[in-house]
């Protein structure tokens, strides 16, 4: 095949090359013959001539190449990578701002071309260590880079170089065409609908692929954000102002304690991670008498908007909506206290962290007393626990600040060194 022989000739050093770049398998190329691809070798090697060991400038490509070089089926990989690359290097249409800027965006077809032709490239220029797996990738990068910059460097010789500039305008037409065609959105038809002269079917094909992958990505992300948002609203989001969608995860939802299933109604109190639920040992009846003392601390668990009521309606054994598997602890007044049945579920789950302690048979000392100032011993115990076992997961799992930022702030406040000596 076109590549193999020349490769074999030229690369005596690198075994990899011989092993891997053996014959170009046409099937790997996304539709189209090799001849469709063009590569400007002059450009490609321009920079390389000066320094035989220089690698093509990969930085331009940014995340264009998140390719890992070392895998089995290199050709297969490179083709795939070509596709990934293509989708990753979105110019403005996809807004994924990678290394190449729009004006010199490497046409997708070129990207693919580059991948496929990396072997040829490899063939041409030997003596580089990276010629094996990396070689393809990096050559690919180089040619993409150079191709992308051809307009700037003026080195393009114009022969069979298919360079498509996917401007927002063009992309819009593309998207419209795709939507119009719906399921029938195949490159040839899109081309027809778009009626764009300068575009080849191949340009469209690659762009389409990119577009679809991008959409999938977006949808997945949105779905995730939606589910997080739902939870967030359920867990006090109502009070948090129902902030607009955030793809990020609210700290409420990342407790290491584990999180109960979404509740049908928003809670006015942030339950869950913040609330340390006690777990009295025995049955309810037993703990009843004890509870009066301990329930007091729990009062804060009640949604504030509820009418204040006796904290413990005596026997509450009846139905804890979740069928208490194990004495739902602070439920002295569950049904009355909580807005929604599911609520008790939360503490139940959120509790397991405290179960071992509670199971020791003591009413949780972890509950803040009535005036909401936790007892000193409680705090002390908890903090010591952290100090002693730093590997424990964070109880809430807040997003940590950047270390540098913190260090900087501390220095500004007169703390030059941490940990302090």
């Amino acid at each position, binding site marked *: 095949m076109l590549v193999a022989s020349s490769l074999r000739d030229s690369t005596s050093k690198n075994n990899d090359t011989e092993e891997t770049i053996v014959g170009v398998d046409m099937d790997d190329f996304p539709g189209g013959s090799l001849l469709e691809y063009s590569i400007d070798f002059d450009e490609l090697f321009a920079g390389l001539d000066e320094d035989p060991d220089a690698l093509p400038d990969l930085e331009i490509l940014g995340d264009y190449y998140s390719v890992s070089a070392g895998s089995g089926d290199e050709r297969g990989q490179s083709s795939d990578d070509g596709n990934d690359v293509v989708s990753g290097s979105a110019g403005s249409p996809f807004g994924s701002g990678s290394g190449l800027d729009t004006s010199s965006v490497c046409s997708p077809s070129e990207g693919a071309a580059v991948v496929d032709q990396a072997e040829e490239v490899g063939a041409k220029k030997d003596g580089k260590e990276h010629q094996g797996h990396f070689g393809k990738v990096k050559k690919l990068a180089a040619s993409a880079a150079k191709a992308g910059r051809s307009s700037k460097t003026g080195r393009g010789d114009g022969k069979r170089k298919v360079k498509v500039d996917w401007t927002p305008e063009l992309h819009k037409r593309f998207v419209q065409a795709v939507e119009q065609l719906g399921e029938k959105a195949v490159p040839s038809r899109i081309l027809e609908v778009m009626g764009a002269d300068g575009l080849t079917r191949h340009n469209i094909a690659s762009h389409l692929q990119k577009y679809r992958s991008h959409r999938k990505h977006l949808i997945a992300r949105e779905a995730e954000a939606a589910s997080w948002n739902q939870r967030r609203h359920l867990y*006090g989001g109502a*009070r*948090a*102002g129902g*902030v607009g969608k*955030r793809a990020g995860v*609210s*700290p*409420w939802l990342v407790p290491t304690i584990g999180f109960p299933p979404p509740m049908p109604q928003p809670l006015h*109190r*942030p339950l869950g*991670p*913040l*609330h340390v639920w006690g777990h009295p040992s025995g049955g309810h009846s037993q703990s009843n008498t004890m509870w*009066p003392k301990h329930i007091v601390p729990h*009062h*804060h668990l*009640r949604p*504030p908007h509820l009418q*204040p009521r*006796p*904290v413990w309606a005596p026997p509450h054994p009846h139905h804890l909506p979740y069928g208490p598997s194990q004495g739902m602890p602070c439920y002295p007044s569950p049904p009355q206290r909580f807005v929604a049945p599911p609520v008790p579920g939360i503490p139940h789950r959120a509790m397991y962290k405290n179960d071992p302690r509670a199971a020791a048979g003591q009413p949780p000392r*972890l509950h*803040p007393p*009535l*005036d*909401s100032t*936790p007892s000193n011993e*409680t*705090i*002390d115990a*908890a*903090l*010591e*626990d*952290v*100090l002693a076992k*730093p590997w*424990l997961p*964070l*109880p*809430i*799992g*807040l*997003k*940590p*600040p*950047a*270390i540098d930022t*913190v*260090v900087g*702030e*501390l220095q500004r*406040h*007169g*703390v030059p*060194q*941490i*940990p*302090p000596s």
Partner: protein
Amino acid sequence: MGDHSSASYIHMVQHLIEKCLTFHMSKEGCMEALSKHAKIDPVITSTVWNELEKENKEFFESYSKSKNEEDRMSEAETSELIQKLISDSSKDSKE
């Protein structure tokens, strides 16, 4: 002072603060507690708290709102509680 030790120290402080948060403590309470029980300079606690707040705005907003409500409720509830206790105990004593 290497990066790692600063990072792990800060992580530890965050962990401690989070513990305090589970107790619904205030920032000042937290500073005091950490200083007292973990010998952490309140300035450090305060700084880390602030940074955490910046990174987790929603959480802290929610947190302080619930804290306010809790504080407000507590008095009413306390007195009610006490009354109930009194009436209960007087009932008990009669029986």
